């Protein structure tokens, strides 16, 4: 959410300077506070709101037992989340009216701001042994990595669209991105925050790939990344906690040791919940696993409760809605007026798509357990607001997009 505020404050003042530079060059546009073309993309908005509403309903269902036992009120989580949802929707609609081209100017400041937060967070009191959250007092916890992901997408879109013709060179097409990605993920590894690191790397890869980087750099990058990961896993203890998770991943029902049992508790409970759902589910509100079996069912593992209550059919519908959201977002972006909008839109919806896939893959124990929240579903006020703001950016892009908007 911090990412959206500076824009509101600074945009009007810079209005005049921008107007002249718009026309001649391909990337620079005529300055407008509001997006020129009228309509925003209704299908995309509909998908966002549908997922948000389903997400809120499921959050309430999944969280009320835990809320009652741990916080004394069934509404503890849902009331907070609903507040942020309203805030987020308002932000989304507002942002959709702003011309996304203004974001060019914020790319570098937001990146620097993210670096700052990523550095600050390392000095925060660790929660469960990791430094990922900055406390915002009554507003809850804020994860700098969430903002960093947005910063990454924004700065990559910004740079690629500016240097599009030189993308096949190392100096302009590879080096800056490697430096940004390396420094950013380096800070994340210090937290440590593996899932955010993975998402950043994947997002960067997708954007550079679409941006036109030569394929051989990807070969080199994969080779290098593999070597780094192998080194970290084999010769340092940096990833030792991730190591245990891999053991737990391979056999979640193992009762070989108490440590592993405790480690796999969440995964096992998740699988019990998913399995209990069967084809049609136990019915909305009927989950049993949410009764303190599945730890924090309102967070990363909320989808297990969704599966338990709504069954395979319900889960499939939600996954299809997400897929449609990604599809629609990419379609909007492909028809965007310029490369900046196109890359920005794709980056944002691919981020949502990746989070959905990785989250559900964790919940189903398809990949080892790592903390990835499910967009629109998982509890977390600031991250929901940020997500909706990002969707607002996509909607803003859709206003200039040549797509059919009904």
């Amino acid at each position: 959410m911090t990412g959206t505020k500076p824009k509101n404050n600074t945009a009007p003042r810079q209005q005049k300077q921008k107007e002249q530079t718009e026309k001649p060059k391909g990337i620079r546009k005529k300055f407008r506070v509001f997006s020129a073309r009228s309509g925003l993309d209704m299908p995309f908005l509909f998908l966002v709101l549908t997922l948000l509403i389903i997400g809120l309903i499921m959050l309430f269902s999944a969280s009320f037992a835990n809320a009652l036992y741990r916080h004394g009120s069934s509404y503890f989580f849902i009331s907070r989340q609903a507040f942020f949802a309203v805030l987020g929707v308002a932000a989304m609609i507002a942002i959709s009216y702003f011309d996304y081209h203004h974001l060019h100017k914020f790319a570098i400041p937001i990146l620097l701001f993210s670096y700052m937060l990523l550095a600050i967070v390392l000095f925060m009191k660790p929660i469960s042994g990791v430094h990922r959250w900055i406390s915002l007092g009554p507003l809850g916890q804020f994860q700098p990595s969430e903002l960093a992901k947005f910063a990454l997408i924004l700065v990559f879109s910004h740079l690629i669209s500016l240097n599009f013709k030189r993308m096949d060179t190392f100096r302009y097409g590879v080096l800056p991105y490697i430096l940004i990605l390396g420094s950013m993920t380096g800070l994340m590894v210090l937290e440590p925050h593996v899932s955010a690191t993975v998402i950043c790397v994947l997002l960067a890869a997708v954007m550079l790939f679409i941006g036109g980087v030569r394929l051989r750099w990807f070969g080199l990058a994969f080779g290098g990344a593999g070597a780094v990961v192998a080194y970290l896993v084999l010769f340092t203890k940096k990833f030792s906690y991730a190591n245990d998770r891999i053991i737990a991943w391979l056999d979640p029902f193992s009762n070989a040791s108490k440590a592993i049992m405790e480690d796999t508790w969440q995964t096992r409970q998740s699988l019990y919940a998913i399995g209990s759902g069967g084809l049609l589910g136990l019915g909305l509100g009927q989950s049993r696993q949410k009764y303190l079996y599945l730890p924090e069912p309102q967070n990363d593992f909320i989808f297990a409760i969704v599966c338990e209550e709504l069954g395979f059919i319900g889960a499939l519908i939600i996954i299809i809605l997400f897929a449609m959201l990604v599809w629609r977002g990419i379609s909007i972006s492909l028809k965007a007026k310029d490369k900046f909008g196109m890359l920005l839109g794709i980056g944002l919806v691919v981020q949502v798509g990746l989070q959905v896939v990785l989250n559900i893959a964790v919940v189903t124990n398809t990949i080892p357990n790592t903390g990835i929240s499910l967009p629109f579903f998982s509890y977390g006020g600031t991250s929901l607001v940020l997500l909706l703001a990002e969707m607002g950016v996509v909607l803003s892009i859709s206003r200039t997009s040549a797509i059919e908007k009904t």
Partner: protein
Amino acid sequence: MAKGTTIRMWRRTVFVLLALIVVGFGAIIFSLAKLQLVEGSSLQTRAVDQQLKDTSFSAQRGTIYDCNMKPLAESASVWKVVLEPAFITDKNREVIADGLSKILGMDKNEIIKRSMKKTYYDELKRKVETDVKDQIIQFKVDHKIDSGIRLIEDYKRYYPYGEFAAPVLGFTGTDNQGLYGLEKQYDSYLTGVPGKLVTAKNAIGTDMPFQYEQKVNAQNGDSLVLTIDEVVQHFLEKNMAEGVVENKVGNRACAIVMNVKTGAILGMAVKGDFDPNNPFAVADKEEAAKIAAMPEGDAKKAALKAAQEKQWRNKSISDTYYPGSVFKMVTGSSAMEEGVVNESTPFFCGGSIKVAGQTIHCWRSRGHGSENFVQGLCNSCNPVFVQIGEKLGPQRFFKYFSAFGFTSKTGIDLPGEPLRTIYYTPDKLNPVELATESFGQNFSITPIQMITAIAAVSNGGYLVQPHVVSQILDEDGNIVKTADTTPKRQVISADTSARMCKILQTNATIGTAKNGYLPGYRIGGKTGTSQKMDVKQKTGVMQYIASYGGFAPADDPQVAMLVFFDEPHGNSYYGAAVAGPVFAKTMEEILPYLGVQRKYTDTELAKLDVKAPDVVGKTIDEAKSALSKQKLTPKIYGSGTKIVSQVPEAGKTIPQNGTMVLFTDEKSSDTTVTVPKLVGLSLPAVNKAAANAGLNISITGAALTGTNPVSNSQSIAEGTKVPPGTVVVVGFIEPNQVE
């Protein structure tokens, strides 16, 4: 170049989109399908296992009733004290452990230790009585403890009569499971189905705010109605216990009373048994003391186990023995049925008989001389039965041996009946074998087999199915099952059976079995003294089993009884002297209870007691003449002129030629006399002692038919003060009666 998307960007985007949709979304959909559709049910089972709290509560075990619905074994509510460590906090742990350790008499530290377990169910103590439960409830109230201690209803088995028909009833284990006797045999009926309360629970074990609760009511066990009659059993137990003491029985004793027409067991007593309320305690005090004195170790454990198994063993169906002379009624019946002998067939006994070069002795070494079949049986003469066996031949002998049920289990509904597969088939019955088997030696059977054969001999020839359970009733009293009393087969004809009854009645009246005689009750019987050859081979000392098998009344047999003392070491080891009197005493007590009427023969009538005439209010002369008519002697107390009271009272029995005491004034009627010792005396000595004391005696037992009877019981104890003229019943036996 284009401002917007280039072709390459478009292609690459489509590639990314497809990769994300196909690989990413495809993989998660595949995972979900696998988990929810393929592995769903097994995962759900695991989930349900942890989500459901399954509390079971016991079913009430069925009652065991006697034939008159008196409960012989019943279950009463007790309580299970369960600790719920999950709900015990560090604050109240100390208080709970302290309180429970005091109430339950357990170690406090142990309770503390168990209260720290990570569970919500830990059985602390079982079968706690209601008063202890009330103490715990009070303790919870006093200390405001809402959770952490739970009381669950349970049941405990009670046997209200204690050491009573114990090997028949058996006993149950700590989980109310039948371990022995009927409790084991009918366990599946008695147990019932435990109830279940299934509630959903959350991860910390408390009930969920959730509608999932399913109660399956306990289905209480079925009840058994036995054929055993508590009254009959009571007399049997009492008389057998006395018999065991009196005859210094070394290896336990048993007795069976059977309804000859249905095979229903009315009583089955084993002495040297146990209290089913406490089956693991050794009931034999000497034995218990001996084991207690042993040093701890395997030897002690083994001794304890042996003693327990011995006392649990139902001797009357599990022990095998040589039936001895009691078996002669089977040999005799077979021979009569086959027509090879009749009542008057002549035999000769010279004290021994040679069979295939081997000499077989009669118990009476000087022999019985010439005798017919009836006399031979009454004398229990071995040479007579050796000759009868010869006449029958191995084929026919075995045919009846098998027909009377000696080659198979009786199938009584009690556990522990051995199946004997080793017996002599006709081809193996060589002359010596046949000769010894004819008088009941050299083959082993169980007492229950013997009494079933006795029933067949007496009841018109039918082999009945012995059984102890007549009906099984469900919780609401509906009949679940009724015993089948159809006879298995007819072994001998009704005619042969009737003739055999008569012969055995003669035997019980004047023959070797006369210690079982009871005037008026038409007892038929046969004595038996079995030699325990196996013991002799092992120890060099011969031991005996004294038995008496009989039935009554002989003209229409109702009940059969077999009395069996293993290794008597008293004055005699013969069936006639050891088992006969116990048989008679028990029959005398149970026959009137079972409604069998006395019917006297002329000889019996001649010796029978008469009824005292009513002479109260009459003058002395009138009374004297009334008494002389009945050959009674008057004895007058007091100085009045009219009779004010009399002993015995009018209508009460008085022996023929007895003395009636007449009181002529109030003061004189306060006179009392002291009952002397009347046991262990000959008939004349008893008469003399009674006359000296001014008492009347009524004699019973072998004195009426015997040659040399000795008294063995008196109805009023020695030293009791009674009015003069009171009638004391004195029982006689023939202590020297052999066989």
